[in-house]
C-alpha cells in the first residue's frame, strides 16, 4: 500500500462554506478535498486514506449523522468533526454517542476549527499506528504452532511452568523451550509484554 497523505475532507452542501474552508486549510498547508454531498464523498473514499472529515450536520440527501452511521458500518475509523449552524444539545449528544470526534457550532473562529482539525489528524495517526501494531501482532501470532498457542494461553493466565508441564503432560524442560519460542516468535521482550499481547489478541478468551 502506498503512503497516503493525511487529508481533510470537507463535506458541506454550501459552496461558500466549502471554498472558504478549503482556502483556510490551504493557508496552513493542510491538503483538503471538498464534496457537496455525503454520497459524493462515499463514492470516492477509501478507509485506508488517513485524515479527518469536517462534516455539515444538515444536508439534503444523506445527513451528516447518517454519513457517520455509514462510516461506522464500513468500519472506517477516520475522525469526524461536525459543524452546524443550528446545533442543539440533543444533536451534539447523538453525534458524540455515534463516535464523532468533535462537534462545533457556527459561527466559529478559524483558529478554533484548525486546532480541532490538528487534534483529529493526530488522533487518526495514533489510531492507525495502533491498528498497524495489532495487525503485526496477529501476523506473529499466526506463526505459532497449536502447542505454542496453548502455552501462550497458560502463561498469560499466570500458570507456573511446573503446573503447565503437568497440565500438558510434558516435561518442564519442554515447557521452557515452548515458552522461549513463543517469546521469540511474538517478539516479546518480557513476560509482562507477552501477557499484554495475549490479552490484546484475546488469546485467553478464545480457549474453551
Amino acid at each position, binding site marked *: 500500500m502506498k503512503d497516503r497523505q493525511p487529508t481533510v475532507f470537507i463535506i458541506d452542501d454550501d459552496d461558500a462554506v466549502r471554498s472558504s474552508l478549503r482556502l483556510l486549510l490551504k493557508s496552513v498547508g493542510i491538503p483538503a478535498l471538498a464534496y457537496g454531498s455525503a454520497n459524493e464523498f462515499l463514492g470516492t473514499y477509501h478507509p485506508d486514506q488517513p485524515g479527518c472529515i469536517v462534516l455539515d450536520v444538515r444536508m439534503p440527501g444523506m445527513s451528516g449523522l447518517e454519513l457517520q452511521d455509514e462510516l461506522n458500518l464500513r468500519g472506517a475509523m477516520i475522525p469526524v468533526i461536525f459543524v452546524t449552524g443550528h*446545533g*442543539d*444539545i*440533543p444533536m*451534539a*449528544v447523538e453525534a*458524540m*454517542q455515534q463516535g464523532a470526534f*468533535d*462537534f462545533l*457550532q457556527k459561527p466559529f473562529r478559524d483558529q478554533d476549527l484548525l486546532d480541532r482539525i490538528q487534534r483529529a489528524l493526530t488522533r487518526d495517526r495514533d489510531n492507525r499506528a495502533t491498528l498497524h501494531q495489532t495487525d503485526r501482532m496477529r501476523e506473529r501470532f499466526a506463526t505459532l504452532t497449536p502447542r505454542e498457542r496453548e502455552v501462550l494461553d497458560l502463561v498469560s493466565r499466570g500458570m507456573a511452568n511446573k503446573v503447565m508441564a503437568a497440565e500438558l503432560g510434558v516435561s518442564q524442560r519442554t515447557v521452557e523451550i515452548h515458552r522461549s519460542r513463543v517469546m521469540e516468535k511474538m517478539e516479546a521482550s518480557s513476560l509482562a509484554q507477552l501477557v499484554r499481547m495475549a490479552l490484546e489478541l484475546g488469546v485467553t478468551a478464545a480457549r474453551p
Partner: protein
Amino acid sequence: MTGQINDARRILIVSERPTAHEISCSIQPLGELVVCESARRALEALGEQAFDCIVSSMALPDMHATELLAELQRRAVTVPVLVVTDPSSIPDTVSAMRAGARHVVEAPPYGSALRERAARLLGLKG
C-alpha cells in the same frame, strides 16, 4: 446476579441547591436518592457506597462535570453518568460526552425528559 426488578436503584445526585432539589423531585420515583452538593463529596460517597447511576449538574462548586468524569475514569468507576446542563452549553456537552458521560440532558425544565433518560440508564422502562 442482581437482576431483580424490585431491587431499589440507588442514584447519586451531584448538584448544588436549589437545582439538586429540582433534580431530586424529577427522578425520585426511580429509586433511592443520595444528594452530594460537591464533586469532592460525591467522590467520597462513591468510595463508600454503591450506586446504579449518577446524575450530575454540569457546573459544580468545586469542579466541572467533565473533570468529575475524568476523575471517575481515573478511579475506574463505571457507574453510568447523566449530566444536566443549561440549554446553551454545546461545547460543555461535547466535552462531557468525550469524558465519558452516557448522556447530557438540557434543563430546566427538570421534568419527564430527565426522568426518562435516567430510567433508561438504570435499565428501567423509560
